[in-house]
């Protein structure tokens, strides 16, 4: 059965391998240039005291390729789900060839096991290779840009793309098995994958690990701004900008006192009398706030980056396995 599955799959495999090779060559050539640019500008900028210009210049390098490589990693799981997973079984139904395939000397379950296994492994391998290439290519850019937890960047680096690709493939295959038509299956794979991926990003990833809290003093560097939301109501504007926790994912930064209370309106109007454009005297305002209050930062430390990556990979692989199990149950049902 493996040989037969390969017989049907090898054309697609060859095309994909060719595409991957092209991407690899482009990234290798430009990646070496990028590394060279980094070594000759950003790495030695401290000595020349022009780091901001050097980093700005560096992060702008290969701009289109940066966008493209991120886009590629976003798109590849979707493409796999829609163009590999969804047609795999639905096309057999549309062409009637399931009646040929399922009446040979191999049971349907075995047929599915090989198709599913081969496809899932190939999908995972492609996404893994691509992520590895892009992660290497952009390693120095990522260092300069900081924030590895950025919701876009987290999903296009490391090991999570492997899980996305395997899941998208399994989802497409499941949809094809249920709908038995290619177009609805492709559509279901598209919508389903985007929905699950977004849901995990927004509602699962932030809660995988209980966030840490840290108190930071309010200094003149803290971007405290006072906001008069409506006449008579003044509140301290909470900002996560300027918080120096390297590579951390900062959820929130609140201004609170020892007991955990936020500044009252009356305190703020006394400490920070407002002029036409915010506090009359920002320096005094900050000093008075700092005497009584501090910033309470809720965050995930940078050291949790890889545990979170593996966790999310595990989630998507588990979802893929659940879908696979469903397919095995479903395919035993009679067909017309």
């Amino acid at each position: 059965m493996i040989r037969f599955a390969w017989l049907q799959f090898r054309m697609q495999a060859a095309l994909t391998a060719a595409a991957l090779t092209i991407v690899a060559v482009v990234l290798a050539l430009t990646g070496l240039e990028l590394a060279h640019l980094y070594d000759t500008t950003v790495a030695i900028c401290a000595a020349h005291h022009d780091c901001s210009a050097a980093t700005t210049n560096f992060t702008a390098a290969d701009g289109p390729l940066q966008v493209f490589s991120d886009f590629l990693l976003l798109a590849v799981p979707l493409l796999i789900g829609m163009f590999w997973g969804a047609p795999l079984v639905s096309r057999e139904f549309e062409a009637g060839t399931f009646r040929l395939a399922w009446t040979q000397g191999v049971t349907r379950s075995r047929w599915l096991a090989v198709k599913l296994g081969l496809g899932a492994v190939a999908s995972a391998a492609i996404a893994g290779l691509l992520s590895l290439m892009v992660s290497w290519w952009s390693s120095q850019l990522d260092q300069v840009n900081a924030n590895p937890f950025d919701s876009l960047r987290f999903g296009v680096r490391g090991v999570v793309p492997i899980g996305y690709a395997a899941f998208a493939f399994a989802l497409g295959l499941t949809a094809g098995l249920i709908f038995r038509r290619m177009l609805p299956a492709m559509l279901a794979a598209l919508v389903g994958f985007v929905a699950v991926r977004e849901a995990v990003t927004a509602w699962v990833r932030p809660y995988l690990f209980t966030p840490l809290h840290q108190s930071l003093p309010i200094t003149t560097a803290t971007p405290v701004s006072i906001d008069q939301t409506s006449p008579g109501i003044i509140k301290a504007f909470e900002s996560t900008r300027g918080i120096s926790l390297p590579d951390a994912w900062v959820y929130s930064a609140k201004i609170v006192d020892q007991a955990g209370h936020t500044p009252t309106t009356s305190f703020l109007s006394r400490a920070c009398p407002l002029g036409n454009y915010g506090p009359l005297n920002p320096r005094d305002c900050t000093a008075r706030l700092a005497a009584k209050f501090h910033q309470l930062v809720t965050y995930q430390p940078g050291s949790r980056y890889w545990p979170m990556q593996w966790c999310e990979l595990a989630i998507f692989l588990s979802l893929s396995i659940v879908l696979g199990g469903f397919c095995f149950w479903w395919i035993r049902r009679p067909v017309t």
Partner: protein
Amino acid sequence: MTAVIETNDLGKQYGRKWALRDCTLSIPEGKVIGLVGPNGAGKTTLLSLAVGLLTPTRGSITVLAGRPGDGPAQLEKVGFVAQDTPAYAGLSVGKHLLMGAYLNANWDQQLAKRRIDQLGLDLRQKAGSLSGGQRAQLALTMAIAKQPELLLLDEPLASLDPLARREFLQGLMEIVASHGISVMLSSHLIADLERVCDYLVLLVASHIQLAGEITELLATHHRLSGSRRDPRSLPSSHEVIEESHTDKQSTFLVRTDQPILDPAWTVRPVTLDELVLAYMGQAHNPRPGRRSALGVVS
């Protein structure tokens, strides 16, 4: 005598509609079975049940003493040519043979190659560019090369022109003669199958209307004509399948094991064609209490 296909009260339901019902059959080994019936009578359903693509809603079906589709050994015992002979359009003829070789333990590659050669097919040609007849031959080759004990063919002649039909049936008969396998093939026209079959299963409106050895069926059915008579005046051993009356004359198609002794009748043998038509007509004008008695021949 072992049965190649044995069904007991077999039924298959789609939604609320029964595609096949009350089907009880026992077909002996080594026959060429013609499965005849109008379109939508349930022929494909019965064949799909026999190969294991479908599972029964009720009753049971046993094929070569096993449950259809139950494991690779059972799958290999049954060769199947599906309706419209599906093939992978993007795979060549040679790749289809490879597929058969990869998926069937008893595959006879020499036999397959020899047949493809005889048919004048190019191994490199994509299945998508084959004519209907060529594709049917490829499908038949694949079904034979796996060396099954039973060959099931669903409307194999439908897409073929008369010449291709003859060649297809010729090829089939050679296989039956040389391999001694049982074959069941369906068609909505009895004329297609008359020359090759020795067993008939007639399906009408999801029910088995008639089943039996063709020689036996022909020997037990007679057309009687004579002066006008009430069918109730016939002996009880005569089962009336069809009757027609004019002012003076009556004609009956009867089924009976007994010799017909009444000298008032002119007795004529029936052709298979007439027989099938009569039973189809009977299905459309059923008489209470008669149908169930006729449906089953064991």
